[in-house]
């Protein structure tokens, strides 16, 4: 029953920060909005007084009048300049502070942007041939900086999880890097921020921040091969997957399926969402997605699959079993 609901995540927002960088930027935002409000209020009040006041100089161009106006305008420009200099000083200080992650052992994750989904790889020198490869859901430990090394396979995308950090573009031909750190456990939603074609709107992701121990547990499981099908229905589903064309694009660790065009599905059953965090991962949603992806994400590169009802049933059982 729980799974029928959308996964519960914090309101996607830069002013509800849950990460080191977003927190520092949010503090700066408070300075900005207070200063800007005061300046705006002064300008508007002056303007309204100028429009409404009753006493008017007889000769606005009299030397005395001009001198007093010049003094006021010059003073206003000087104050503006001071505000700008303070702003620049605070901005540069903030920029330096969040440019590099704190000196703690960081986790490194490769982020690869595809039209229209996210690939996450966890490089691990201990098991070079067996990196975790997952899609659209980025698991990170709380309180530990995560360095994201980012590249794009096709067009420019932009990685953005507002509760944790500002955005950084993924650009074909340029590897980019950014870092994030969550200071409390939770699920944070993010979305591609650079227009990337038809399904730019539905290229979302979830960052799942867990305490270190839970994260390690997840990583251990994620590093392993897929679970073998539990029953005969799932077994039949595996056959549908391997022979029905799915494996051309999708990989499942421990089987013959090795496609790299679409997301790796090795532990698909443990994901909260499908279709780049567009839909909760329920049996009904998944069935609808497999049969007619174009209805949910028109333009998606996943083709429709005309499966017999029992084939579909078996396939769903198999995929949902890939915990």
């Amino acid at each position, binding site marked *: 029953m729980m799974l029928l609901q959308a996964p519960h995540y914090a309101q996607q927002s830069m002013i509800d920060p849950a990460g080191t960088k977003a927190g520092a930027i949010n503090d700066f935002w408070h300075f900005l909005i207070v200063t800007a409000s005061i300046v*705006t209020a002064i300008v508007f009040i002056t303007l309204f007084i100028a*429009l409404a006041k009753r006493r008017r100089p007889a000769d606005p*161009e009299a030397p005395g009048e001009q001198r007093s106006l010049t003094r006021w305008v010059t003073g206003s*420009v000087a104050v503006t300049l001071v505000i700008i200099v303070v702003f620049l000083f605070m901005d540069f200080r903030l920029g330096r502070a969040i440019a590099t992650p704190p000196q703690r052992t960081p986790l490194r994750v490769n982020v690869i942007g595809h039209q229209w989904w996210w690939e996450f790889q966890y490089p691990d020198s201990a098991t070079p041939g067996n990196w975790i490869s997952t899609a659209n859901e980025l698991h990170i430990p709380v309180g530990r900086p995560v360095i994201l090394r980012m590249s794009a396979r096709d067009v420019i995308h932009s990685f953005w999880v*507002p509760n944790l950090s*500002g955005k950084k573009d993924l650009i074909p031909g340029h590897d980019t890097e950014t870092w994030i750190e969550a200071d409390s456990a939770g699920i944070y939603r993010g979305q591609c921020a650079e227009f*990337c074609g038809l399904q730019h709107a539905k290229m979302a992701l979830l960052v799942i921040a867990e305490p270190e121990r839970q994260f390690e547990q997840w990583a251990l499981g994620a590093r392993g091969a897929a679970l073998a099908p539990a029953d005969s229905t799932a077994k039949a589903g595996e056959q549908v997957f391997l022979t029905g064309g799915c494996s051309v694009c999708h990989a499942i660790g421990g089987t013959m399926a090795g496609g790299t065009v679409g997301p790796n599905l090795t532990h698909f059953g443990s994901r909260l969402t499908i279709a780049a965090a567009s839909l909760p991962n329920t049996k009904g949603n998944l069935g609808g997605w497999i049969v007619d992806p174009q209805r949910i994400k028109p333009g998606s590169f996943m083709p429709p699959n005309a499966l017999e009802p029992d084939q579909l049933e078996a396939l769903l059982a198999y995929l949902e079993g890939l915990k």
Partner: protein
Amino acid sequence: MTTATARVETIAQPELDVELDAVWRSRPGFIGWLMSTDHKSIGKRYVATAFIFFCLAGLEAATMRAQLSRPENGLLGPDTYNQVFTMHGTTMMFLFAVPVMIGIGLYLVPLMIGARNVAFPRANAMGYWVYLIGGLLIYSGFFVNSGPDAGWFAYVPLAGPQFSPGKRVDIWAQMITFTEIAALVASVVQITTIFKLRAPGMSLNRVPILVWTTLVVQFMIMFAMPSVATASLFLAMDRLISTHFFNPAEGGDALLWQHRFWFFGHPEVYIMFLPGPGIISSLLPAFTRRPVFGYPALVLAVIATGFIAFGLWVHHMFATPLPQLGQSFFTAASALVAIPNGIQIFCWIATIWSGRPIFRTPLLFTIGSIIIFVIGGMTGVMIASVPFDSQVHDTYFIVAHFHYVILGGVVFPLFAGFYYWWPKVTGRLLSEAAGKWNFWLMFIGVNATFFPMHQLGMEGMPRRVYTYLAGTGWGDLNLVASIGALVIFSSVVVFLGNVIWSLRHGQIAGANPWNADSLEWATSSPPPSYNFRDTPVVGGRAPVWESGGELPVMTGLARDRQQVLLTTVLDAEPDSRHDHPGHTIWPFILAVTIGIFFIVLIFTPWGMPIGTVLGFIAYARYVWPKKRHDPSIIELPRSVPPAEVPR
């Protein structure tokens, strides 16, 4: 009706008027319409065409707002939505904001500086036709489902041959070429006009501020356009003949496009925006009954903005990999542009403070402009910060920011200027009552539409999304924004109604209905084909007010052919007389051959040879020397002094 203009009108010289009109007026009939090289006709065509594009782009915006009014709405699919938002941005930037300001400048500048026409009137006419062809091209594509869909910024590789097959982006790139040609032609025309055709005595420190902003903008066009011209050429070559300027797999670079595009794109923002403050500075005297305060400061602020505008482009790229020191430079430049803009606002407030405000529609739109522009300026300084921008970049916060800036800096001044100069153009005033409705609906609608978008952006809503999920919680504020868009729509309807009503029923304006100070008000409304019977001579910044009723004039220009007076660049001393070629069809034909060149090129390389041959023929005919009874430039003796008029 000041005594000044009344007096000018009463100098009865009917036979001179008839002679001049015979020489200057456009030929009758449709062909005559195509032949016209009158700056007033060309200016009006620019403004009317740009206004049609403004309405089309507004309808596109309304469609987008309808789609986004609730989550997961099914009104538009992603393919249509992407075309619609690309067309909205492209139209507003390339087919509305820049051309409408070019058109206003072309209409007003010669009148404001006391000239008979612009310099290079044939090139001027050609520029308009090229602009029109570009606009027709892209809308033809849009209506047959080949509208561009890669954004008005057309980032590669998405806009490249691999990810945007078909003709959509090709049509976009060629439309850019057309608008570049038109803008560059207009800049040559306007710079020459302002430097050489000013009335005697109108030294550079007496030029109306709108003319100053026009001059600065035209120089900016000259330096900014070549960047996007080469960029769109490279893009077209990548797409049509498989070069690899932007293909990283073959050593090209995707960021090269962004640098070239924004090196043009940011100055473009100021190219759109600077005429707005020019309009405000020029109409404020009439509605505060005093000359605008701080003329030298205003002029220097406009020039400073023109320079700083070229040092800001990287703030569109703060999410790309850049060294921190380099970013700091662009942050500083982006924040410092607030200073010249602040100077302008402070000077306007000082003008109102010491003047006697008259609350007519142009002043209302001016006040609205200041309020909206200040809000946009505040968020503008905020997003100069790299860390803050890393959050709001490419979100609805930015959408809110630049709509505040452009509506406050371009659209509100434009409406102010429209209500102000409409009686000069048509001879009839627009309705004040409808004008007030127009203003309040626009002011409320703009704030209702765009203010909530700040919050939406901070809540994570990216730009250019055709839909959003219900779980994001963005539905309510989007609905408010969509209702606001309806209010803006109704405001534009009121405006259109007012325009149509006024053509028949508007109060007759007379030469100077606002009792204003600059030269365009010294001639009748609408102005005669030759603008001024005799060249006015200027002794100050407010010639109509200062002349105290009797505008001094200078005679001696030919009556039997189109002849203009050239003056010196700095002091506007009479220099020589110059014959104009008169009305001709060849600019139109040359524009058509340019159209053939670029449009056929989209489909086959044959466009190049065919277009070149046709263009050569048209151009040869265009510049073919005519027999004249005397040389076209007549040196004047330098001893003719500019008349000094006592204040």
